């Protein structure tokens, strides 16, 4: 219990990702597997049913602390969490025993559930008297079923993968799979042998495109290249192996559960298939903005309603594994041919719905034999179309269409190229039509002019460089009137410093700035200047720490417009 409490405190005390991972790693390395199994149970977001009601906890805490119930209730209002309130109110005694976590749970907490009330109370009071304040907080959170640690699942997976010495994807699969909080299962999760489960999930490293430099003509003959739209979705691999389907994102996360319809559709491929592509929110024939897709992320259970509200598709553009064989060394041309045929087969392959074989490609079915009349939707699988320009020139008007098409630009992939690893330059290029964008933090504000003379409308934005925010652009336009009022109120409430008419504000608000180009500049502290910066949207979903870095921006210096 002490070790687990130390872990809880360590995770609670830091906001640094690396420190959280380090705390988790040392816990998993040192803890008894029987205890660590339970720790993992809680870290994975699983809970135990509450053993003590709020009323009972409040009354017993009041009794143990020698306080009237109403006062405990007042304290609860101030704290907002009953488990924490009780921990703060109970007599401040030192911890007298170090009960292993698994014993605490298996021999005390779980039996309490079915024990008569008097016994429950006695066990609770006894446990309180044996723990210190921090341990009591953890214990109270366990018995009220409210134990939550501020640590993302990806960090837990990272720590486990590092302890076991296996790839994160393998660990992610083991972690999201079925296991019980037992020493055996915990040891299995930490098995250093990648073949010991999870290997089904092993994805390939993604091949990333580089921003296009120079003129299109510099790429050589158009016939060497395959052109596609550049989609603005979630880059993912659809992995179909050993009867399972998994969806692995470029953000190193297993996102199968967030997109169950894509996982179902993946069953239409034979075992030993891995596709590279993009998940997009899709309506009719067009992709929807990325913000729609975000609503689907981070969900363990996706409701039928959510699936209907935000329909998604997997847009395949490459084939990495076919019939269990790694195809990455083959040419794009060959991979593409096989991808098209694999997709065609999948879409026409009979699938079983309600025990009856059906094909599902938007054809009409005789549905009257089925219990449910809802139409069978086409499988949410599509091919990323290949563009067929006559000349480099003819791509320009296409590029200008991209905004209406909801895409980010055009991709060029060399037909003779293998599938590379990471950002290898030369074979995959992205040609973004839209202005460049960066996420920057609002750091200074100044009153506007004319109609806006009484509002803070002129802003200075900063991005990160060596852990510091450095100013990089000024922008005045792009916000709606309502947003301007909101920012104005924020500026007034969060002024940290004044230099003449300029107010420095708490670096909290993040905006996406659109701009046309980056140039070297000796006049600016950042050493670069951006052309025509304007606010393209307010990134409510981002924190200052998520803003762009100067390094990212400098990379754009090489990109001609």
């Amino acid at each position: 219990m002490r070790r687990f409490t130390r872990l809880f405190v360590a995770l609670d005390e830091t906001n640094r990702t690396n420190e959280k991972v380090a705390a988790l790693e040392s816990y998993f390395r040192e803890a008894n597997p029987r205890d660590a199994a339970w720790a993992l149970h809680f870290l994975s977001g699983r809970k135990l049913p509450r053993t003590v009601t709020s009323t009972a906890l409040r009354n017993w805490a009041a009794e143990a602390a020698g306080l009237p119930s109403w006062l405990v209730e007042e304290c609860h209002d101030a704290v907002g969490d009953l488990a924490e309130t009780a921990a703060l109110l109970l007599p401040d005694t030192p911890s007298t025993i170090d009960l292993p976590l698994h014993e605490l749970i298996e021999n005390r907490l779980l039996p309490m559930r079915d024990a008569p009330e008097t016994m429950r109370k006695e066990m609770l009071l006894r446990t309180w008297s044996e723990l210190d304040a921090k341990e009591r907080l953890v214990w109270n959170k366990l018995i009220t079923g409210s134990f939550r640690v501020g640590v993302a699942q990806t960090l837990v997976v990272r720590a486990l993968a590092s302890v076991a010495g296996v790839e994160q994807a393998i660990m992610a699969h083991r972690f999201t799979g079925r296991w019980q909080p037992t020493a055996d299962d915990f040891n299995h999760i930490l098995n250093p042998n990648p073949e010991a489960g999870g290997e089904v999930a092993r994805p390939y490293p993604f091949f990333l495109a580089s921003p296009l430099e120079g003129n299109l003509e510099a790429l050589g003959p158009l016939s060497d290249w395959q052109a596609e739209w550049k989609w603005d979705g979630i880059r993912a691999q659809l992995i179909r192996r050993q009867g399972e389907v998994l969806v692995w994102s470029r953000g190193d996360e297993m996102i199968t559960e967030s997109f169950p319809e894509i996982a179902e559709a993946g069953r239409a491929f034979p075992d030993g298939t891995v596709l590279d592509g993009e998940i997009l929110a899709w309506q009719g024939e067009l992709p929807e903005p990325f913000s729609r897709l975000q609503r689907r992320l981070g969900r363990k259970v996706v409701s039928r309603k959510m699936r209907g509200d935000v329909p998604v598709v997997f847009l395949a553009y490459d084939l990495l594994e076919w019939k269990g064989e790694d195809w990455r060394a083959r040419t794009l041309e060959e991979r593409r041919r096989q991808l098209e045929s694999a997709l065609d087969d999948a879409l026409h392959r009979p699938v079983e719905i309600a025990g009856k074989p059906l094909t599902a490609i938007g054809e009409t079915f005789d549905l009257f034999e089925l219990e449910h009349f809802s139409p069978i939707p086409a499988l949410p699988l599509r091919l990323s179309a290949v563009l067929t320009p006559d000349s480099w020139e003819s791509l320009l008007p296409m590029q200008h269409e991209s905004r209406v098409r909801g895409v980010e630009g055009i991709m060029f992939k060399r037909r003779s190229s293998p599938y590379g690893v990471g950002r290898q330059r030369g074979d995959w290029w992205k040609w973004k039509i839209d202005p460049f964008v960066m996420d920057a933090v609002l750091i200074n504000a100044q009153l506007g002019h004319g109609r806006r003379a009484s509002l803070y409308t002129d802003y200075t934005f900063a991005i990160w460089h060596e852990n510091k925010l450095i100013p990089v652009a000024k922008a005045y336009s792009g916000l709606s009137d309502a947003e301007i009022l909101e920012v104005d109120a924020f500026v007034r409430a969060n002024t940290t410093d004044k230099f003449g008419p300029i107010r420095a504000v708490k670096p909290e608000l993040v905006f996406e700035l659109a701009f046309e180009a980056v140039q070297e500049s000796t006049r600016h502290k950042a050493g670069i200047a951006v052309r025509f910066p304007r606010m393209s949207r307010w990134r409510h979903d981002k924190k200052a720490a998520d803003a762009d870095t100067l390094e990212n921006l400098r990379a754009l210096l090489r990109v001609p417009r």
Partner: protein
Amino acid sequence: MRPRNFDDELDDTPAFSEAVTLLRNTSSGLYCDAGDFYIDPWKGVDYAVITHAHSDHARIGSRNYLASEEGRAVLQERLGPESRIESLPYGKSITRNGVTISFHPAGHILGSAQVRVEYRGEIWVASGDYKVEAEPTCTPFEPVRCHTFITESTFGLPIYRWRPQAEIFADVNGWWRANQAAGRTSVLFAYSLGKAQRVLAGIDPSIGPISVHGAVAKLLPHYAAAGVRLPEVQSVETFRAAEGRGLVVGPASIDGTPWLRKFGEISKAFASGWMQLRGARRRQALDRGFVLSDHADWQGLLSAIRATGAERIWVTHGSTGPMVRWLKENGWEAQALVTRFFGEAANGKEEAEEKEP
């Protein structure tokens, strides 16, 4: 005697039938009719008796101020050189219109005082802010016997239970050392008047170099003059040469400012009683919160109240409702005193902080 300010008709004070009402609440603050003076008024008045120099107690704009001798210099610093301030050592009294006024140590910050008011045998004490644990930067709290005690209750709930400050400082030292090992500068937010100096007095200066923000620095000479020994602080320029080994102390308002960016990679912590609650700590995205308060905790408040021997307790600041109810249930005559600064607890500010350049 009639009040001289006829616009001060707001009177929230219910009359205790047999009690002499020495002090009452007015729209300008706590007023003594008999002596014609205010205690910690929030508007400009003719004669203001000040418990301590925090800006929610010491407002500018009054014609005359009376403060404790120990607190005179910091009060002058805060109110500006034009303000007329008389002072009085702890325990000594003056008489004004037959009302005896004296200051008694409140142990809150340098010069903080409880104001004792006596008139025709009736004694009232207004506590101002106070804490009961003694520390090196101010004269420790002394209970004063009285009939009516006006107590603060910023932390008037039993969830507020302070650990001994030696333990807290051990934690602070440990955090500083760990940051040092990681090459990060430690930045500790603390109110610039009182808490910052208490922190300086409490930490182990042998760990590394120390620097302070200007808001803290300008008060240090007054502490030195009062005989409070504090470790040497370095100018920011010298300090920066120590790259990630040092400790910076400054008010929380410097968070996110260009000034703070001078120090490279930092770890941020806050020393405040509000850090007792996880929520308060997490909302501010701090690396650490140290529960170190210049106010009394629940037990401290109760022990101070008992030690006055008062039967009537007025409760002001913070959790007045629960404290009043608890006192009533335990045999006191108690009521809440409404102040202008009800917002304090809600936004997690222990003292009103002024913005300093």
